């Protein structure tokens, strides 16, 4: 986590995520560069940290001007991604990759 970036400063934006939020990753591969690995597609994880703001690589790789957006540290239970894995797998995920699951799900 970058020093000086606090969760408090992020929570004013409605679409921002907080630690503990349950999120889903995209189910499909886009037809361009992306930073979501195949093994983490269609997975459910939990936000654990905020890593700062960076332009979405999917856009930048295609020469599309893009404003920085939030990047989060997301933890996945290993057996969500690989059978027989008992440790957690932690990935950096841009906000655009994540869909927040409703609290009652």
């Amino acid at each position, binding site marked *: 986590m970058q020093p000086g970036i606090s969760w408090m400063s992020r929570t004013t934006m409605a679409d921002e995520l907080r630690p503990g939020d349950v999120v889903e990753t995209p189910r499909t*591969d886009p037809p361009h560069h992306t930073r979501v690995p195949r093994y983490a597609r269609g997975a459910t994880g939990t936000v654990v940290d905020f890593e700062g703001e960076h332009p979405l690589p999917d856009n930048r790789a295609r020469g599309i001007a893009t404003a920085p957006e939030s990047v989060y540290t997301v933890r996945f239970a290993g057996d969500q991604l690989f059978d027989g894995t008992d440790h957690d797998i932690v990935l950096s995920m841009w906000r655009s990759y994540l869909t927040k699951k409703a609290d009652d799900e």
Partner: protein
Amino acid sequence: MGRINDVGGMQGFPSIAREDDEPAFHADWEAHVFAINRALLARGLYNLDEFRDAIERMSPQDYLAASYYERWLHGVTTLLVEKGVLAAGDLVDVAHDHG
């Protein structure tokens, strides 16, 4: 549409060879590729995501057969042609001259 670079979690690849006291470069040309890429990124000819994308667009056969810095060279030359700095024929000529 997954690309050939996205092999995380895939079975069948050999284990990663770890060299003791591994040098940063195994040949001078690798250092040259590294330096050229850094210079072109710094000049803004392309950005890091375009560079990664250029490598990921390699054909699966070429990607798997290439070493790390061979992939970098492919990415650099692909972008030099696509950005209009080099003509595709220039690359063939250079390869021929040094062949």
